[in-house]
């Protein structure tokens, strides 16, 4: 287990914070760490900055993520990684599609050339839309409190996708599936960052698997072509016990 000192904490939304720490390790956008809160738990969190100063951007869902959002400057952060296959990098215009805390893993991909669809339940939860610089920003909220009311597809369908060299997508699996179904008709290059329960982070426990691929190792980034062949994607997953359940949309 590694550790580092928290050098800054940034409030992003009422429930999301970004924790900055120094870690010289090379890492790429789309990779994640297993962050440990001693006595509480260990969870997978994407790197939201991949420079020497790294960051994670965390939404408080339960005990571990909540404890991370409570870290202060000077606190110690424990972690291991980096894990996972990163996003492919392309030069030229790209589109980011982020749902909720999904924008965290997309942040390191932001350049002057990236447009973005940032979606959330409500305006206050729109993450990193203030970071989109140069490119076009499409905001989408469930409740219409900012931008388009609806889901990312409502924004996507207004955009000419042909101009992008790559579309990067991160968010809840239900959102990924919708975006996938939408893009599947086209010849668009796209990569999806998937989230599933992770226990080990290193390809042994099988809790994160989809169609025999381990998200923690073969993912968590998959290309649209890879998703095409998957039976489990957007359909079924295993719970903490290993019980198969059906995702209902």
């Amino acid at each position, binding site marked *: *287990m590694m550790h580092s000192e928290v050098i800054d904490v940034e409030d992003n939304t009422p429930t999301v914070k970004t924790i900055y720490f120094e870690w010289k390790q090379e890492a790429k956008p789309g990779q994640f760490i297993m962050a440990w809160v001693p006595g509480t738990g260990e969870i997978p969190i994407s790197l939201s900055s991949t420079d020497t100063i790294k960051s994670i951007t965390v939404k408080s869902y339960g005990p571990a993520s909540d404890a991370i959002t409570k870290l202060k400057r000077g606190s110690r952060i424990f972690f291991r990684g980096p894990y996972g296959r990163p996003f492919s990098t392309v030069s030229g215009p790209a589109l980011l599609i982020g749902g909720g805390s999904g924008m965290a893993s997309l942040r390191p991909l932001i350049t002057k050339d990236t447009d973005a669809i940032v979606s959330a339940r409500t305006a206050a939860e729109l993450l990193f839309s203030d970071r989109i610089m140069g490119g076009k920003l499409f905001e989408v909220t469930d409740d219409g409190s900012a931008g388009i009311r609806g889901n990312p597809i409502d924004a996507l369908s207004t955009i000419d996708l042909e101009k992008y060299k790559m579309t990067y997508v991160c968010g809840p699996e239900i959102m990924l599936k919708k975006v996938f179904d939408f893009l599947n008709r086209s010849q668009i290059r796209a990569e999806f960052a998937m989230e599933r329960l992770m*226990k080990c982070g*290193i390809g042994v426990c*099988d809790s994160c698997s989809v169609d025999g691929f*381990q998200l923690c190792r073969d993912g968590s980034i998959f290309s649209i072509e890879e998703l095409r062949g998957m039976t489990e994607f957007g359909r079924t997953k295993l719970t903490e016990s290993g019980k198969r359940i059906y995702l209902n949309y």
Partner: protein
Amino acid sequence: MNRLNTQISGIRLDNPFILASGILDENGYTMKRVLDEGAAAVVTKSIGISERSGYRTPVVVEIDGRNMINAIGLANPGIDNFGEEMKIARESMKPVIGSVFGSTAEEFAQLSMKMEAYGASAIELNLSCPHVKGFGQEVGSDPDLVESIVGEVKRSVKIPVFAKLSPNISDMLEIAKAAEKADAYVLINTVKAMAIDIYARMPVLSNSFGGLSGPCIKPVGIRYVYEVKRETGKEIIGVGGIRTGEDALEYIMAGASCVEIGTAVHSDGRDIFKKLSLETGNIMKSEKIESIGEIIGAAIRR
């Protein structure tokens, strides 16, 4: 016939490499993929009577990149929820061995019958889970209990039954004798261990204690396979720290008929199975070994 072909209790294996219990074998699709990618057979995660979520994370600690300590805590969906995974895994048409755990002979028998009904090719009895009667002890350190479990399961199913023994005991031969009705032994399970993070001043695993696996425990596994093979002559499946063709042949020469691979899936990925077949085949060729059968126990001195 390929020089890597072998068999265990009559079950034919394309090569001597089986996926060990607890690694990539909770999801039927994963087992199927591991089989399609080169494993000769898989052992399922150990399944019990009722659904368990296992311990809180952290449930694994990596040590030096190749070894690990785990305390998954027997997370499992319960035998009644495991039928679909078995069905998916069996689409591979290769043997799927059902691992089960319980605390009484009746539980083991019930689990084994259900596994047989799901189409398991054999049963692996995980005799290393915590045992309520003795304090801090495992089911597998109580010879009477082991004898009654193995006896009861053998009476209940027709498929072969393997007894997986724990190394955390004073005298494995005593336990092996108690389990002698089993068709084969599986040696060894993990070695009880712990890792403390000195900067957190705390054990890393939420359960504090866990099981050590990986190359670290290979010399311990080799010792037990050799000793039990020499004393009992029974068929053995070797497991513990196998990463290379040399490791596999070391287990086979110690007395194993085939081997299981766990932690190396972490260090080398699922490709480990192809790699092992390739390496083992190459060594056998250059050492002029025509079949696995020819060298089982070849290193045993009497």
